[in-house]
């Protein structure tokens, strides 16, 4: 199995890469952080007898993404699995963020993901070999999320895309999985975000090692969507029953509290 992972130097990307290597899959890893890619490659090769190739790439640049695939072509990679992990969020109110940053969320989470997915699928050349496509969406995709509005909407896009492509590409032997995790304790920053949410943060947080393992298991089984954790599954179920305006109101209260706490802590820490 040959796997392409984007955002592979970040927390979830890294964990998925380790999980794939554990299963003996060959890996082609990309990320904007070249130093991080070199490190994860070193770490993987020291532990597992697999092939690892890396290429740093800013996926928001169509030119660089093109070069990435040309590089893979030249080195004889034909992928059996694509994990679209690369994504970004700039938390905070819509008007408090620059339009550049807001558009960057769309460029990376949506445009870049579409570009990579299209290029990877186009390279199958009508092959009937099984192909596994994974989109990293989020629990945030289940609701409208004030103060994380663009991020949540971008993740909703991916969830919707995954459902639709899953049906459309079924006949071409492509299975499509959307992963919708809650908080993942990957970086000190992510951890601070989870802590600031208090009770809800703790409740919706998922275990990174479990998410990484089950994502691959579910993809292989051809599942459509994976919402890790019972609480998250329940939340997403009830989220669909309650009117969106009510959900938005509730979430606005929750996030404004968490963000106030978090940004105050950050400001305090900087003094």
């Amino acid at each position, binding site marked *: 199995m040959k796997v392409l992972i984007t955002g592979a*130097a970040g*927390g979830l990307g*890294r*964990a998925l*890469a*380790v*999980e794939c290597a*554990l299963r003996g899959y060959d890996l082609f890893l990309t990320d904007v952080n070249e*130093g*991080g890619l070199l*490190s*994860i490659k*070193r*770490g*993987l090769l*020291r*532990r597992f007898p697999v092939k690892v190739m890396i290429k740093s790439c800013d996926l928001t640049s169509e030119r660089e993404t093109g070069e990435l695939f040309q590089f893979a072509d030249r080195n004889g990679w034909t992928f059996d699995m694509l994990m679209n992990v690369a994504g970004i969020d700039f938390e905070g109110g819509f008007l408090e963020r620059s339009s550049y940053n807001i558009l960057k969320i769309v460029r990376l989470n949506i445009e870049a993901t579409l570009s990579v997915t299209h290029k990877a699928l186009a390279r199958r050349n009508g092959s009937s070999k099984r192909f596994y496509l994974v989109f990293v969406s989020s629990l945030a995709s289940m609701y409208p999320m004030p103060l994380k509005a663009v991020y949540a909407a971008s993740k909703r896009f991916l969830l919707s895309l995954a459902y639709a492509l899953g049906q459309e590409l079924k006949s071409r032997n492509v299975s499509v999985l959307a992963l919708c995790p809650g908080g993942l*304790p*990957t970086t*000190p920053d992510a*951890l601070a975000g*989870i*802590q600031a949410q208090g009770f809800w*943060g*703790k409740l919706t*947080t998922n*275990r*990174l*090692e*479990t998410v990484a*393992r089950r994502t691959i298991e579910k993809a292989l089984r051809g599942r459509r969507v994976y919402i890790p954790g019972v609480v998250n599954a329940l939340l997403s179920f009830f989220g669909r029953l309650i009117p969106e305006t009510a959900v938005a109101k509730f979430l606005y209260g929750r996030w404004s509290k968490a963000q106030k706490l978090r940004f105050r802590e950050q400001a305090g820490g900087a003094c």
Partner: protein
Amino acid sequence: MKTAVVTGASSGIGYAVCEALIKRDYFVIGVGRNEQKCLAARNEIIENHPGAQIDFITADLLSQREVLRSAKEILKILDRTSDGALYALINNAGCVRGCYTTTEEGYEQQFALNHLAGFLLTHELFPNLVKGKGRILFTSSNSHKMTKMNWSDLMFQKRYNPLFAYKQSKLCNLLTVYWLNAKYGASGIRAYGIDPGLVRTDIGNKDAGVLIDLFWSLRKAKGADPSVPAAAYLKLLESAPPLGELYHGCDKPHRYSREVNEKNAGRLFELSERLCGITGGWGI
């Protein structure tokens, strides 16, 4: 003047050890993660001990790149000040993680910082330690007992348990101590592990997760002041307990777990060399 390197030096036990060393006229090179905290620690020590010889290096030892970079900086300082000889390396930096988190290399963080970082730094500075007939101290813990090496899943990828991952990392410290003495004791170095006991530090409050943060805040209130274990560290540097006594408490040597044996130590050493990319031996 003897030179000592202390990791995790900007707070807690590391800071107290720095102070104790300065009082005995050591030249101290501290390594800390946070630049501002390192600066504050340095200023405080110089203020309290005028004329203190202390340098700080800022490095996040979770990443092996940073371990190697800090080793290079330490070597530069040693060449300048002591003709390359190093008397003491105190591998003290450590962490607790409530959840499975990985380093840049994809390694579990407690294993990477509590064990591998100290292992790699020891390797990088080993010729200097041999030259200085030096001591290598690891901040281990009594908690290395009642556990085994989880060889089939060393980084707890299948199901993470913070306590067992921590216990194992502290067992790794003593296995490293065992092997260093067994294999390289003849070169004049001595390695010891220390159980500092329950100490009032912030180890459980730094990125450890909500529950551990809360638990540790309650528990550490009963802990000793970091200066208590610091005195024990100094005693190990100034006296020369027999090499068989691998593991010391604040007062006297303790019996270590039966898991600390040649078979486990050799296996861990070989594996750690691989995980740190050490291919050229230990330079002696």
